[in-house]
């Protein structure tokens, strides 16, 4: 069944994962999008502020997107997102990390400009196997309302 705006009331939504990120994935993403030594080269990474090979923050965000897709967006009447309020990279992504995604709904409101849709603001926290918070993201997604609800309110 497709999830609509009504299925996203404020509060805790769900926990998804684990999703393992391998060294090969970290190196492949870094080579294509973020070829800084701290993401590509063990020796340089050991010298960096992050003290060891770490995944790109953009890789972590992209994996978070995939975990959201597999967890619920793949079966949600999603129309896309206008942006991201905030991303905080707190602890580096390491090769072999098993990621868990915790999703909370911070806000859900009907769109003024497009009343057949709602704007659901998600707060996502991604943790490694040791339970450390690696990344926090707050982002709205536009979701269709159930036709009967949208019509009922318009009438």
């Amino acid at each position, binding site marked *: 069944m497709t999830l609509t705006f009504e299925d996203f009331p404020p509060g805790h939504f769900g926990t998804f994962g684990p999703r393992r990120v391998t060294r090969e994935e970290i190196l492949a993403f870094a080579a294509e999008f973020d070829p800084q030594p701290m993401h590509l080269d063990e020796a340089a990474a050991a010298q960096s502020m992050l003290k060891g090979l770490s995944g790109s*923050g953009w890789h972590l965000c992209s994996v978070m997107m*995939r975990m959201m897709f597999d967890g619920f967006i793949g079966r949600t009447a999603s129309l896309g997102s206008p942006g991201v309020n905030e991303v905080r990279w707190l602890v580096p992504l390491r090769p072999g990390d098993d990621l868990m995604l915790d999703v909370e709904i911070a806000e859900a409101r009907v769109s003024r400009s497009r009343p057949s849709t709602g704007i659901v603001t998600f707060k996502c926290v991604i943790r490694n196997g040791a339970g450390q918070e690696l990344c926090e993201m707050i982002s709205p997604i536009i979701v269709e309302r159930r036709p009967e609800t949208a019509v009922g309110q318009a009438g």
Partner: protein
Amino acid sequence: MRFFEDIEIGQRRELGSFIFTAELIKKFAAQFDPQRFHLDEEEGRKSLFGGLAASGWHVGSVCMKLLVADGQREAREAAARGEEVAVWGPSPGFRDLRWIKPVLANDTIHFASEIETKRSSGKRPEWGILEVRNTGTNQRGEPVFSMLATGFVPRRNAV
């Protein structure tokens, strides 16, 4: 790259352009964001985007790619002049990221980067903290992407 002391608010770097081909859009989407409008032309046309659209995370990742390339270019130029090269630190995050308009198949996006704020780090005196506004503009001159990134930059006198 530059040291904290060499950076002024308002300094702008043109990072170069990137063509988001249908093939690249679908490849990224298949791996990280397989929503139908990022994978299929017809689904894209039926969506709010009006065509096969790149994942927003793809657009952000390409911006990062061009930022890194620009930093490496700048470092090579500094090294060629015999200057000491600053190695920038990791980023603690970003805020106010806006996907202003869809990036559609075969759009050419030009990226630029402008220093918005700078301050010294309280916890790490050898580092400064910058906020940088990164933007993307399409071939029609329309802004499509904007974000305010935070980064650690080494201080010259700490080396």
